[in-house]
């Protein structure tokens, strides 16, 4: 069933129709939120808020528009908002607490791979990117969106997004070369 049919039903309050859309897009939203917020709990909160807000706003959604781009725009806003709230919260935390929380081995897995595992190292490299570069990289490379859709989602111009993606790739290169060429 197409997004258009599902979103039309969901707009009339059909939660089951909406649940199909949630299942269809949850992974994409979760991938973006996890990398942008670098915290599983914050990411899940942001994704949940996104789906709840989208559901409430669906009756006013212009159904000629693309549901995915609209949903991702809400998600990006949620990620930005959560990141900002967290940053403000962290200002009130002693630096040691932040350092402990951000230490790779403090994730509850005990002796984590400390970057030896390919996936962990790739995640660490991407998460080290500046946020707007990371956002553009995730949308372009991981979610494989076109620049036009990215512009709609992020509110940035296509030229700015191309520049961010280019800078992201340049910034990633040394770390990825270390992962794949050593």
């Amino acid at each position, binding site marked *: 069933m197409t997004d258009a049919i599902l979103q039309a039903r969901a707009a009339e309050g059909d*939660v089951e129709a909406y649940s199909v859309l949630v299942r269809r897009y949850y992974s994409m939203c979760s991938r973006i939120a996890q990398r942008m917020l670098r915290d599983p709990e914050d990411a899940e909160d942001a994704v949940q808020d996104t789906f709840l807000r989208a559901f409430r706003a669906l009756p006013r959604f212009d159904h000629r528009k693309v549901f995915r781009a609209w949903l991702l725009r809400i998600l990006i*806003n949620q990620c930005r908002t959560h990141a*900002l709230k967290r940053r403000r919260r962290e200002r009130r935390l002693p630096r040691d607490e932040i350092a402990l929380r951000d230490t790779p081995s403090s994730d509850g897995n005990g002796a984590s791979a400390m970057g030896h595992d390919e996936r962990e190292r790739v995640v660490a490299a991407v998460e080290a990117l500046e946020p707007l570069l990371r956002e553009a990289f995730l949308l372009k490379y991981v979610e494989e969106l076109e620049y036009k859709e990215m512009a709609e989602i992020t509110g940035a111009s296509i030229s700015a997004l191309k520049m961010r993606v280019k800078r992201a790739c340049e910034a990633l290169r040394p770390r990825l070369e270390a992962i794949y060429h050593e």
Partner: protein
Amino acid sequence: MSDPRGDPLARRAAEVLRREQTDERAIERVMAALRERANGDAPEDVDVDHVTPSVAEPAIPAAGRFSLTTWPALAAAAVIFAIGLGVGAAFLAPRETRAINADGATREAAPVSEAANAAGGQSQLVEFVLVAPRAARVSLVGEFNGWDASATPMRHAERGDGTWSVSVPLGAGRHVYAFVIDNSTWVPDPQAPLAPEQWYGERNSVVVVSGGPRS
């Protein structure tokens, strides 16, 4: 020759990131929350149609309402030379600058409303100055050059005091900018007001160019 499909290493990394398992329990939690709210709450007025940071508007005057000459706090390192229509130069700050505050590092900010820059239509030449004695290269980035670190390189003063400067024509309005040192470190202007936190909490500097000459 660049790969039309993009950077091969980046593609490889992206493939790894796409291999994320879907958390079925998290989806169930979303649906449970939805059902709960669908049964109870009336629809709220949710503004989801605009990409806007959820932060307060800047406590900075609207474009054209103040000139730098009447707002000393904005003088900072940006020095405006009015051009066109015989407008005299308006020096708004001493040119001496301070060393960069290492804690003031900033990152790229998303463009702010371009509408703020539309007023007036008359460009003024704004000089940006930064003291960075250890830098090999400094450039100016802002919404006016698409945050492109290669677009506006700054010149190193010959007197050897570590001063870098560049002048760019800016239209009336509010302009958000930062400096990029050695192509890698983004810093706000230590002598200019900071723009409000946006997007992911990054900070940049702001300068407001007045809409016209002031006597």
